[in-house]
């Protein structure tokens, strides 16, 4: 844990130095957001660099970041020594930023509520092991594999689609896993992004022309959206994507204002977009809109504009090439399609082959059009809020006040020629319209924009009484949804307690109804399965991560079942100890049952069957001797 703290502090230091020295940045909001952005950028850059050259070990990561911090810190110190005024003049003044809001009666309950959500996330992160479908199936396992191999490589998996997605988030997960034995820090992965999103929403509102007191509504709408609170608990990607979208928009708007000073803000927007592209391929939509905004002619001098275009394009393209291009090049080489598994067609002509379309890949409720998804989401006809709920998740305040505020602010903004506000809201809505599936967690930036618009409407459309009424209603609805958010049908105080205590005491987890904890329980209760020398082939399950054991020590892999002989040869070549079959109808289950002389049934716990493989490996031989006494479990 000390190593983790040291490494993280080094990255924070580097990020702070970079933010302080970044050209064209002005003011605390600029620098704070730049710091938030620099931390994941530096982590991504260093892990990707070491992983691609095959030097990916915790020690080297630490050393590289220490060198980086030293260089950046030294440069900053040197600069400060040369020009002491420059840094001293730029101090944070948060008191001034919040001065108006703290006198409002609604402010403190909402801030306390928001702090409670953060504490809830911290508590849950500490208490429960990582859960969540995507996290256990294809976000966390690549990070473990890369750490085990010491390099970043395309991991062959049964779940091809999931492993063909950009895996930038796995690099951040790798950071959380590299320095500690525990995996609970992974649960906190999106927590900084949740805070970053709040800051970005506030900054964006200020930049769009909303007053200080009113701009806080943008942060509150976003930070207290049920989907944001729920997803902060799990290592998914949507909170990060939304926060980065808001950050990119903010820096582009700042560039509009400060374009005469250079493209410093645009480079930061480029970094945000690059991180997004490394996490999710649909960030190309954001890239397109950000590029449109960034390349807008801000000067009348045409010659100068053309000259600047090159720099602006570079500012957007270079970070993406450095931080995100690997994933698309990998797919191009492996599948001849950079955004595999999605097929790309232009006017019906296939450009890149692929087995799926975006809609078929994402739609979770068949037969439902995107607009039906949108309307259901606005109505929130759900049993409970969930981190990946297909319908609902923005909360009552978004439907009841946010939509109205978006309309009101757009009308007033266009009439009053507030182009920055109009640009922000239009870009957000355009991004939403371009999204093929209106699935709330893919458009999670919308609550922030609604909050921004709400703040603007309060400031410009209503008198004192109207403002008080609306603020009271918004606060009441936010607190109402906040009350509903922690409820999980599969989680209770007892569940949380049991999961936490079982893991802390080293006891097996009970196979209860807590998410995917039964997978952890299955591995923990199967004798000799979780062991540093265990080499496990799996099939028929998506939840790979729990199979790696409590300390992520087991080597786990999938061998494609082309034919029995080839499959068996590869099993033996890779010195496989166990074969775990997650579904009874898989072809591997049939092969294993047909060859009991090689596949000895070791354990059975529905839906899993574990086979010990008879081979000459010392560990296999040792386990073969135990088969009679403790191995086999009855049906």
């Amino acid at each position, binding site marked *: 844990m000390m190593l983790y703290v040291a490494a993280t502090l080094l990255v924070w230091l580097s990020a702070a130095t970079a933010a302080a020295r970044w050209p064209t940045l002005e003011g605390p909001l600029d620098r704070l957001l730049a710091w938030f952005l620099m931390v994941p950028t530096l982590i991504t850059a260093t892990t990707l660099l070491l992983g691609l050259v095959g030097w990916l070990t915790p020690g080297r990561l630490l050393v590289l970041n220490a060198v980086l911090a030293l260089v950046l810190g030294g440069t900053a110190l040197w600069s400060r020594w040369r020009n002491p005024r420059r840094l001293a003049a730029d101090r944070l003044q948060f008191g001034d930023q919040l001065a108006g809001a703290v006198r409002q009666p609604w402010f403190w309950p909402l801030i306390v509520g928001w702090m409670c959500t953060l504490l809830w996330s911290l508590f849950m992160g500490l208490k429960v092991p990582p859960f969540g479908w995507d996290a256990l199936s294809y976000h966390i396992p690549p990070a473990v594999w890369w750490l085990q191999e010491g390099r970043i490589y395309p991991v062959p998996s049964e779940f091809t689609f999931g492993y063909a997605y950009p895996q930038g988030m796995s690099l951040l997960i790798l950071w959380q896993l590299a320095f500690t034995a525990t995996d609970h820090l992974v649960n906190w992965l999106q927590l900084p992004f949740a805070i970053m999103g709040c800051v970005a929403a506030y900054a964006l509102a200020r930049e769009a*022309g909303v*007053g200080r007191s009113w701009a806080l509504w943008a942060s509150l709408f976003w930070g207290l959206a049920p989907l944001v609170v729920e997803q902060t608990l799990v290592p998914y990607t949507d909170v990060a994507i939304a926060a980065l979208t808001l950050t990119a928009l903010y820096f582009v708007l700042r560039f509009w204002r400060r374009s005469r000073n250079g493209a410093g803000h645009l480079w930061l927007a480029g970094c945000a977009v690059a991180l997004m592209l490394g996490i999710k391929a649909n960030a190309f939509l954001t890239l397109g809109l950000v590029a449109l905004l960034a390349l807008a002619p801000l000067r009348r001098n045409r010659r100068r504009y053309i000259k600047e275009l090159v720099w602006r394009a570079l500012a957007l393209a270079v970070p993406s090439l450095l931080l995100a291009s690997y994933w698309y090049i990998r797919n191009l080489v492996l599948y001849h399609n950079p955004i595999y598994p999605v097929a790309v067609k232009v006017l019906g002509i296939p450009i890149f082959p692929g087995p799926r379309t975006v809609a078929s890949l994402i739609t979770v409720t068949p037969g439902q059009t995107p607009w039906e998804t949108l309307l259901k989401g606005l109505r929130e006809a759900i049993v409970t809020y969930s981190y990946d709920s297909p319908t609902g998740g923005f909360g009552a305040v978004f439907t*009841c006040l946010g939509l109205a505020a978006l309309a009101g602010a757009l009308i007033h903004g266009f009439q009053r020629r507030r182009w920055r506000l109009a640009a922000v809201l239009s870009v957000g809505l355009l991004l939403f319209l371009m999204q093929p599936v209106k699935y709330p967690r893919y458009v999670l930036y919308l609550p922030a924009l609604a909050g921004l618009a709400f703040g603007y409407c309060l400031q*410009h459309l209503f008198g*004192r009484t109207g403002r008080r009424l609306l603020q009271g209603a918004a606060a009441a609805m936010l607190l109402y949804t906040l009350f509903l958010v922690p409820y999980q049908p599969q989680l209770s105080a007892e569940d949380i307690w*049991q999961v936490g205590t079982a893991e802390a005491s080293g006891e097996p987890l009970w196979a209860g109804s807590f998410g995917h904890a039964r997978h952890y329980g299955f591995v923990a209760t199967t004798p000799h399965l979780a062991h540093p020398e265990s080499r496990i082939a799996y099939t028929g399950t998506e939840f790979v991560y729990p199979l790696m054991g409590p300390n992520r020590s087991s080597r786990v892999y999938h061998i494609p079942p082309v034919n029995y002989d080839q499959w068996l040869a590869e099993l033996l070549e890779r010195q496989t100890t166990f074969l775990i079959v997650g579904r009874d109808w898989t072809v591997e289950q049939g092969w294993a049952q047909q060859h009991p002389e090689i596949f000895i049934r070791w354990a059975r716990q529905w839906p899993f069957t574990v086979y010990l493989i008879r081979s000459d490996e010392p560990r296999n031989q040792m386990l073969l001797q135990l088969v009679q006494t403790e191995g086999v479990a009855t049906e």
Partner: protein
Amino acid sequence: MIIKGHNIRRVRRTLDPSGDFWTLRPRQPRFPTPAPGLASSRTPAAASTLDEPAPEAAAPEPPPHEARPPEEPPLEAPLLAVPPVAAAPPGVRPLEPLRAPEETPDETPPREASASKARPLEAPAVAEAPTSPEAAPPSHSSTGVLLQAAAPEPGEAWQALYARSTTSRRARRTRTRLSRARALARTAFVLISLLASAYYWVGPGLQLRPERTAMAGRVFEWWQGMRGVALTHHRAGLQVAYLDPQTGRLFGVWDAQADVELVKRLLLLLPEGQWAAVTVLTPGDVETTTLLQDALQEYGWVQEVPPHGAAAAIFSRSTQPGQLQLIHAQVSSDPALVLSLPRGMAGQDGTRLASSFYIHVAE
């Protein structure tokens, strides 16, 4: 006099702190240091922008690191087409050129016009000039008004400048456009908000939507459960849990799925002084439900479990292994059930529940 909106800026810019007179100057300084006597008149307007900006506030507050938004139009542009100061004879103060005489009379709003008429005769010429074209010879309008009168009273000068600034065609058009925009935006806001709120909250029969009330009820129960021992069951099948009533702790939960025999074995193994909770969620599994019902009859279970429903039962064990007594049972014809036992509730064996016990069975 209440001065609000962007006019306050225009008036402020006319202040010349260096002299005891009023004049119009080009933009700089934007916010000059106020004269000592005028500081109090500026303070309320400046303070109001921080906390509760006036609805008419023209420009939003710029970010703290910004001096002035670049897109903000130069508000005083037509008024500040002032001839060079050097062109004016010594001893006179240059003012803005007058507008053409035909523009002024019909542009003056009635309020400002009446204010001008009511003004005393010794009011400064600067205030009279735009509203009374006949008072200003054409030659003056081309070269600017040359003031020879004494310096006006500050209050009157403010009033005059404010009146003139609001009589300009541009200002009037802007005000009309802005008030229309505001009204339109506000109407859209209110209408959409009402419609969306109805869509969100109101269900059939103009009543509160059942999803909303049910969700709130569930969460309330869940929060209740957070204070005691909670057992959840949300997958079809059978579940058995051991409960230690004296410590108020669950110490074992088994998901038996459809294995009735496993349930019976688990009940037989229940330690002395402990309680067991059996929960059933039976969406469509009639056979298993019947089997379980038959198996539990020997422990006093008499309720009929519906094939599409849920059930929960609490048993306590006597001193003899395998001898169980039914403490509490509850059956629901919906696949959702909430069972709540209060703290202090006594079992057949005399033990009392140390904390409230709460079971939630749902799909």
